[in-house]
């Protein structure tokens, strides 16, 4: 049996590209510097497909599909940059802003936030739906870190990194729909969590100011994510 991966050809934005059947559309697009916005996706973690920012159009399919979870198929024709997609992305970002209390000007992640920079890239200059202004708690009980649910977009990066990389599985998502929220040790205060190793990976992967290091003032929280692809690669090579 051949171990050679099966090579196929597909078209993204008019460019003919080759891929294996295991590659996602996002992977191939990124390899060829075709920009598709993402939020929940993070290189080095399993894909989740929750944020829907990476939606693309695929010829012959009426539905929009997420580029991070959709695998490449022979002769597939993908469009990543249509007016319809732009409108969808804008709307998704507006809904994220309206859902919780994202107040950039007083946020420690101001200027280094993925939600904020995506909003800028996608041209979100106002939010057309009413803000919900929910009243949400902060968990500041951990010695080093803080969770601010007001800024969480439920991307589950923290949940995944903690489970898949650190192996602690401190984080989970509780509740459904609008009530969904992340929590530690099945609803124990983070500071009292027995599984948390205080490694801080969740903080580094969090795209917004939801998980932050304590002692940072406004606009001072800059996250480091370079460690992630490195760690996953090392694990793959040394199982």
């Amino acid at each position: 049996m051949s171990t050679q991966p099966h090579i196929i050809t597909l078209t993204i934005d008019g460019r003919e590209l080759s891929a294996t059947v295991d590659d996602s559309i996002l992977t191939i697009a990124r390899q060829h510097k075709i920009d598709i916005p993402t939020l929940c996706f993070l290189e080095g973690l399993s894909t989740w497909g929750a944020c829907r920012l990476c939606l693309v159009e695929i010829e012959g399919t009426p539905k929009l599909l997420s580029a991070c979870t959709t695998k490449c198929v022979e002769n597939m024709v993908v469009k990543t940059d249509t007016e319809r997609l732009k409108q969808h992305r804008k709307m998704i970002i507006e809904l994220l802003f309206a859902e919780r209390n994202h107040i950039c000007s007083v946020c420690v992640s101001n200027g280094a936030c993925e939600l904020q920079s995506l909003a800028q890239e996608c041209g979100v200059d106002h939010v057309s739906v009413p803000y919900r202004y929910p009243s949400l708690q902060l968990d500041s009980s951990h010695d080093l870190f803080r969770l601010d649910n007001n800024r969480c977009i439920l991307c589950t990066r923290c949940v995944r990194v903690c489970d898949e990389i650190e192996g602690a599985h401190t984080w989970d998502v509780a509740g459904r729909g609008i009530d969904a929220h992340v929590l530690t040790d099945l609803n124990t205060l983070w500071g009292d969590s027995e599984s948390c190793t205080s490694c801080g990976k969740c903080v580094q992967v969090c795209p917004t100011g939801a998980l932050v290091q304590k002692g940072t003032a406004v606009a001072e929280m800059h996250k480091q994510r370079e460690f992630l692809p490195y760690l996953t690669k090392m694990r793959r090579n040394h199982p």
Partner: protein
Amino acid sequence: MPRTITIDPVTRIEGHARITIKLDDAGKVDDALFHVTQFRGFEKFCEGRPFPEMPSLTARTCGICPVSHLMAASKACDSLMAVEIPPVGAKLRKVMNYAQMTQSHALSFFHLSSPDMLLGWDAEPAKRNVLGVMVEFPELARDGIRLRQIGQTIIAILGKKKIHPAWMVPGGVNSSLTADKRDDILRMAEEGLDIAQRTLTWFETQLPAFSEEADHFGNFPSLFLGLVSAEGKLEHYDGFLRVKDHTGKIIEDMVPTDNYQDIVGEAVESFSYMKFPYYKPMGYPKGMYRVGPLARLNLCDSCGTPLADEALLRFRQIQQGPVLSSFHYHYARLIEIVHALERINELLRESDILSEHVRARARGNRRRGIGIAEAPRGTLIHDYHIDEHCLMTKANLIIATGHNNLAMNQGVKQVAQHWVDGNKLQEHMLNRVEAVIRCYDPCLSCATHALGKMPLHIQLLDTQGKVMDELTRS
């Protein structure tokens, strides 16, 4: 017929206000009230937030004096952390505060108040503004604009932003100063000092022409409250609280800022959203005091810088004991600009000013932290409480304009009594009523931490309080 005259809204102040003048049967002024018709819930939405956010959060109370809030808030956070901030961190904060003083006082004097003084209180309202000044007195207008720009540019150099810089942080500042930035600031401070001196000299020659205004613009005995240094000098950042009475007697001295509640009480009145702080030992409303430039110059033994001290001597010639007329807030403001620029010059020439050790780090180690500093408009108090996880449980802010609330009401009444005659309502009377408010350079959006604007409301009342006429504008 007894009636109420309402001036609504007062122009050229920051925020929204309304003045009501009550006339008696003879058409003479019976009472005058200064209402602040804006309500903000700032203290409320701080609750539950991590304390290090407070500097930026409270700086949003105001686009005019954000630096002052940054400073008082940072100081309150220093106190929560129970740290001593590195000396150069404190010096750099002071430089920014002096730059703020310069730009804010320049705005008040040149942009907001000089139109009255230069073009006359009776000039046509359409022309009585900074553009009018530009036409008639181009040099002075240019000076004013440049001076404000110098203050703002210094803030921007330090904080990388003109408004709402996030550079002042709990524990100090978040970046040190480089030699070329220092030199840029020094050059600008020198240029600014020339302008400030020139304006001060001009203002002093003009003083005799304003004697009627000086006599009746909030010219009354009151207490004065503010910070002085441990040596009793003019102080805007550290120091202790001092209270003087109208005769010049010091009745409180070297009160540690943490004990401010021993001397300051806060009352509430139904006609205004702004609180009424008063000097506690004398009770309300007897304990009326004034804060701000006039108070600071009345309180200090000296300014501690050569040019400002020379000017202070001349200022004190105005009368024996403290200068009581609120008109002289303007004079005091100009002297403070001179002082601020002299101090920037001194601080930046200190040998350690480029040190990179500008920040101390710590958690919240105390449950309560109080930060008091002198904002351009007067003493600014931030008083924070946090829980065991360093989240805010309570914030009390007493803003400079708030301290002056009682005195502003008193000032309005005095002006109204002198200039307003109910039977002959003329533009110039109303202008002076407004102008007395501007002496205090009130910043009402700060003082009420407003959430929104109330519709403007004009009422005409007779002696029984019956509404004779009413006008509402949304």
